[in-house]
């Protein structure tokens, strides 16, 4: 048993949410990128989470599960076609394929991820106080 109860569970969730924030930052940064090493415009990345078993409890009860990054997948939906003949990446008809990043979606995801991060952080903070209080027993 850990001295600080549940800190390994929250640590996994913090890590996963931080990676999600990084990927959202990458999507927003590349909202206008029309050239990538793979060729074509940037394609939005999506993070999927998966559960991670931390510990089975005594007596066959439900297990304690954390969260980790399962996969960083590529969103394959087509990007918007913009008519801009001056653009170096425009095709013969003057159309440029933009990345499939939708800023509104990214901002909503950003807020969800940062709220989840804060919630897990407050769980860690509270666990720390509990551990300190336990260490004070008898003093």
């Amino acid at each position, binding site marked *: *048993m850990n001295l600080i*109860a*549940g*800190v390994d*569970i*929250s640590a*996994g*969730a913090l890590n996963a949410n931080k990676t999600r924030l990084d990927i959202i930052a990458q999507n927003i940064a590349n909202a206008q990128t029309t050239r990538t090493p793979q060729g074509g415009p940037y394609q939005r990345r999506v993070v999927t*989470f998966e*559960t991670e078993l*931390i510990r089975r*409890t*005594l*007596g066959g*009860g*439900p297990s*304690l*599960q*954390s*969260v980790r990054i399962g996969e960083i997948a590529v969103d394959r939906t087509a990007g918007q076609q913009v008519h801009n003949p001056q653009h170096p990446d425009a095709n013969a008809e003057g159309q440029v394929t933009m990345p499939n990043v939708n800023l509104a979606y990214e901002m909503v995801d950003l807020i*969800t991820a940062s*709220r*989840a991060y804060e*919630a*897990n952080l*407050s*769980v860690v903070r*509270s*666990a720390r*106080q*509990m551990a300190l*209080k*336990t260490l*004070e*027993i*008898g*003093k």
Partner: protein
Amino acid sequence: MLAPALLISGCVIDPIFQSDNYHLARTLLDAAALRHEAIATNVANVETPGYRRLDLSTDFASRLKSSLAAGDFARRSAEIRPQLAVDGAARSVRPDGNTVDLERELVAMNRNAVEHQFLADLVSSSLKQLKMAITGRVA
């Protein structure tokens, strides 16, 4: 000369380590630590589809209550251990079937932390009383 010492051990030392309150506080401290882990799991899995929230099993509370009513808790406290169970009373209001409500988890976490603090203080003050009885000094 041994008789007065035995008398003291019969009156002061035993009652503190065998009193219902002391054993109850110990069991409930374990329960608070375990519940904190359950809450950490719930907050970590706030976005896992189909996840059902964990809590202490209601069985634990009823066994504790019946044991206290029977008056043999101090002897049987080792048998009554807190266990986790899926919270069957929680209903999902989300399309993904997840039964975690972040606000409710954070409120439960704070409440649990206060309970833990109170129990730790209780155990601490019992031990302090014992120390005072042994040494005859307040500090």
